[in-house]
């Protein structure tokens, strides 16, 4: 087990190197020039050239890549071309917001999906099944930005209230923080519920037809025990994979909700980096995302072993 984990951790290194090089090259293929943007509307071509020189953009791409890689290996992500702030600091500011948003909505999604999915499977083709599937369908089809705008419209119009605008860390003011996050949690949770419920339902249906479930019932085990020990545990394997992917995606792709509810998370950091062609910032953010994907995948793989004793790692 230990050697397996060590091998997987070592594999992170080439993964990050490949991701880093790809990102470095692809970012520079984006249309738009950072130096022009920084110079602004009143700049002359000479001004732009001066900025380009200062930023090292006139160096060959190999030299630029070498400089960046050298800094990165020393643990230095660089500084934002615009703000001059260290990139780690910017990521440290945005990541907790996205994590809070993701984890909250995941909790809601998992709790609701498990209930709906299991009921839908156990009571297949009943009114409960149809109800759960309709809810899941809505979750799959309604976009978060639409739900977000609708939620704000309804509460502001009919209750003359809106969640406190902006972001207040939970350690500063938990009540304000909860008010700021409650709608994003519910909306994102609802949207995630769609896919997860369907996954739970189909996994459960598959397991329900297995011989060991019939055997368990034939042995006279209580239905709740059969459900918990034999059905749910086995059905969770594909669901775990889905949840892992969702978590990583959520951390980076919640831009619509971040925009609507004014939450300064990773999505907005990413968008700002792209819009302003802040190359180093963009590289830093994507590398962090790559690391998260690798880390979560490793975690999910290890959890397989916990859920299913037949899976062992050598």
């Amino acid at each position, binding site marked *: 087990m230990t050697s397996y984990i060590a091998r997987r951790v070592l594999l992170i290194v080439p993964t990050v190197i490949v991701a880093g090089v790809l990102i470095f090259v692809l970012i520079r293929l984006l*249309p*738009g*020039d*950072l130096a*022009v*943007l*920084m*110079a*602004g*509307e*009143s*700049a*002359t*071509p000479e*001004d*732009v050239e*001066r*900025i380009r020189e200062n930023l090292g953009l006139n160096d060959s791409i190999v030299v630029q890549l070498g400089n960046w890689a050298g800094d990165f290996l020393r643990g230095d992500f660089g500084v934002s071309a*615009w*703000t*001059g*702030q260290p990139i780690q600091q*910017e990521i440290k*500011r*945005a990541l907790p917001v996205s994590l809070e948003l993701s984890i909250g909505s995941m909790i809601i999604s998992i709790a609701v999906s498990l209930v709906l999915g299991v009921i839908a499977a156990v009571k297949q083709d009943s009114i409960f099944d149809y109800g759960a599937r309709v809810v899941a369908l809505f979750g799959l089809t309604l976009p978060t930005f639409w739900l*977000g*705008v609708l939620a*704000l*419209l309804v*509460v*502001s*119009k009919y*209750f*003359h*209230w*809106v969640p*406190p*605008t*902006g*972001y*207040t860390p939970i350690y*500063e*003011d*938990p*009540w*304000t923080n909860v*008010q700021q996050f409650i709608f994003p949690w519910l909306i994102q949770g609802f949207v995630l519920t769609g896919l997860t419920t369907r996954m739970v339902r189909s996994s459960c249906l598959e397991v329900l037809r297995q011989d060991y479930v019939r055997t368990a019932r034939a042995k006279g085990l209580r239905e709740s025990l059969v459900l918990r020990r034999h059905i749910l545990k086995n059905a969770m394997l594909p669901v775990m994979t889905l949840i892992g992917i969702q978590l990583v995606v959520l951390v980076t792709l919640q831009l619509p909700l971040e*925009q*609507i*509810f*004014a939450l*300064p998370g990773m999505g*907005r*950091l990413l968008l*700002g980096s792209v*819009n*302003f*062609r802040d190359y180093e910032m963009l590289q830093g953010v994507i590398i962090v995302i790559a690391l998260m994907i690798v880390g979560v995948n490793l975690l999910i793989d290890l959890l397989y072993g916990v859920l299913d004793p037949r899976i062992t790692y050598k």
Partner: protein
Amino acid sequence: MNERNYWQRLGHRKLGRRQLLRASAKAGVGAAGVALVGCGDDDDDDDAIAQLPTAEEQAEQQAEQQVPQEVQQAEEEEVVTVEPSQPKHGGTMRVGLPGDAAHLDFALRVDIMQARNSNLVYSKLYTPKRGPIAPEVEPQVADGFPEYPTPTETIVNLRQDVYFQDVPPVNGRQLTAEDLVVHFNYITRDAEILAFNYAYEPVERVVPTDKFTARYELREPFRPLVDYFGDWYAGNLPPVEVLEQDGNLKSTAIGSGAFIMKEWRKEVGIFYERNPNYFDQPFPYLDNFEILVVPDASARLAAFRGGDFQYLEQFPTALVDSVRSAVSGVQEWPIDGWHQGFILQSQRWPDVRRRQALSRSIDRDALNEAIYLGFGKPSGPIPPMWGDLARPPETFENWVYDPQGAKNLMDAAGYPDGIDLAVKIGPYGGDYEASAEAAIASVRDAGYDLTIQTPVYADWIGDVYTAGEFDIALVPFLRPQLDVQTYGYYHSQSGGNFIHVADPDLDVLADGLRAAPTDEDYRAALLKFEDHLAEQCYYILDVQPPFWYFGQPYLRDMNPGIASYFWSNLMHVVWFDV
């Protein structure tokens, strides 16, 4: 921002008699009230702001209607009667803006958040005079208007009661003539790219003659200098201590303005408090000011509707009815906005008849009605925001809608079958995009078949403003100095001449404007300049759009105008009538 910490606030909370009375009254209201309270805002907020009633406040009002008579009497004893028309201190203004500042250095590239921050924190020698049009400035920290002992000298006297904010490392020291030297040196230094620093090109140096007087020595007569002192960007006066400490003004903003910047939380907002030592007492009236970053327009509208924001600005005309219906008694101010129109890369448009044909083919009145509900103003060569210094388009033959005349001009220029061109449009959206499409549809009558190209923002700036890589583009622009729209746009030696005009006659006229010794001379020179522009059609303005500003019913003395764009000379006078 210590008091923003919930736990500290909890520790510091004192339970007053009023709170006790309210609490006991609330307890009797029942579950409905409690439910509403649960949806409401934080009752413990020390920064409680004057707003429209929130759900919680409505619950409190219901509760108070049911309190026993003696309790009400006890409360009434504490009520301080204030005449509704008397300005008073207090309240927190909360405003949402779509984006955060990249940095806070006004001398570098400017943006929407940064410019507003500068106008809250810093003072200027002169400031655009509040009002519907923009041609005048008035003294701010200057003591009266400048003196002109010779055509190349401008003497400025400072007020002696102006102090910087009492924040380290400046610590509330007095503003002196030395600060004018620091300001000039900072905004004209060579080290970095500076925003609009060409405005100070004619100034040779600044020499303090005593503690509160400075002499600006000019290379040539430069009458508009006083207008540039009031510039939204380059006019702000920074303290030398911050420059010595940080080397720039990117993250620290300390000035002598009405509000002290308490905290800048990246991508969240900027938080201010009243400057108690502001030289222009009793201003400012507001205790606190908060700019929140809310990228989504509908979320800003919802916050306004819910009473969380007191003020909305720059909403597209298409959403005006939504705002009007959102808040009962909402105040609205459709002020003159930027000017916009087609710019023609002059080197690629040598034949004046093609330019004139384009101008004649734009139906400015129809465009105004269709896009701006008639609230815009059809524009001549000098935009209407300059009041009586600008003449309306019908004054000029080439600026009157005349599709047949336009067609004839195109025939004469050798284009009887019209011409296909790509027109570059900036990625600004909203009214701008809608009006661009309408204008493009309009010029088809003259044979101009324009295809829209919308580059990404970086390419838009690079191609249009820097490199001149365009045939025709539709640009919005706004500056508070007429000199920018005369010398700045059109003089062949100007850094702001992104149209690439090289017209010797226009150079002479623009130089004459800068050197005009009196107001009368200036007006006479401007008439000639405008006539020449109307004939040559280098920058074909169509309609000056309105900017829509909205305020809660209890905002007083707001009255934004084009001169107070970016909140220049505006927010310190605003108060809440609650």
